């Protein structure tokens, strides 16, 4: 199985995009993880998140489990998930077959905005992480 190689240049480029599109829009934290549950990179800060490693592992498992649910209704996969909390909510977007982006935001930020901005990030973030360029 191939390894995922992350360079500082890739991290900086992805952080800039995420900062511009999501963190400045009020999202507390954005994490990009892989399907094995590794944290590829993370931006922003949410003091409520004390164990990002567990969050990444459970998110990967959650995505895997919902993919199985999708197959039970004749779908290949669900490409996005949304979990609504009282104070914080989570939006998960599959970037490709290996990468998942999760955004954690308060109820002051609209889900519609997150969805639009996350969709805009999908292609460039994927391209930077896979190829090193947009």
């Amino acid at each position, binding site marked *: *199985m*191939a*390894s*995922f*190689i*992350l*360079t*500082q240049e890739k*991290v900086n480029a992805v952080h800039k995009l995420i900062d511009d599109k999501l963190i400045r829009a009020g999202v507390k934290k954005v994490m990009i993880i*892989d*399907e*094995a*549950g*590794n944290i*590829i990179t993370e931006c922003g800060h949410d003091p409520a998140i004390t*164990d990002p*490693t*567990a969050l990444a*592992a*459970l998110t*990967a*498992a959650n995505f*895997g*489990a919902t993919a*199985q649910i999708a197959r039970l209704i004749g779908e290949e996969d669900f490409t996005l998930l949304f979990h609504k909390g009282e104070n914080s909510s989570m939006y998960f977007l599959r970037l490709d077959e*290996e990468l998942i982006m999760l955004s954690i935001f308060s109820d002051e930020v609209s889900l519609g905005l997150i969805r639009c901005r996350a969709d805009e990030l999908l292609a460039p973030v994927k391209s930077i992480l896979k190829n090193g360029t947009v």
Partner: protein
Amino acid sequence: MALIDLGKREIHCKIVYYGPGRCGKTTNLIYIHHAMIPKARGKMVTIDTKGDRTLFFDLLPLHLGSVQDFDIRIQLYTVPGQIMYEATRKLVLKGVDGIVFVADPLQVRRQRNKDSLAGLSNNLAELGVKLSEIPIVLQYNKRDLTESEIPTLSVSELSSDLNSELQAPEFTASATLGEGVFESLRAISKLTVHQVAEKNRLLE
């Protein structure tokens, strides 16, 4: 799929403890969690049922020090052993870099060990990985039971059943007592990190 962060000089690997139900996979992780200093380990995450069996997986992140300027970070996972959770086992195996196969020595579970190893091979194949190409160690657990009246398999019987083709490093263990737990972990960590580093030409 190992993650190599060149900026932070970190190598992240995923090691999965695999084996039939009730063979002691979670017990291995619990022992490691209790025995390691808090600085070297993260929080253990467990998703189990009320009946004490693993429902989805257990996770224990470890920091194993550094090798040639790279920090080695390992995530230990277990799979649920019960037969009906095949789909879950496949999910947990995604991106695996190394495997500890934990075998149960009870005579009555002889076939379950073989079935579980065959299941592992099939699940890996579906993920595009050959069992013969991934680092693996075999752990013959519950050796403390050999002194009881419960009929158990000998190490040579287990080895003949499970390791005649693989020829992987094998360890005897009593996970409840901690015997053999760190020997197995050390061996699989070394093999896994070595393979990841070699594939990516990271270490001299």
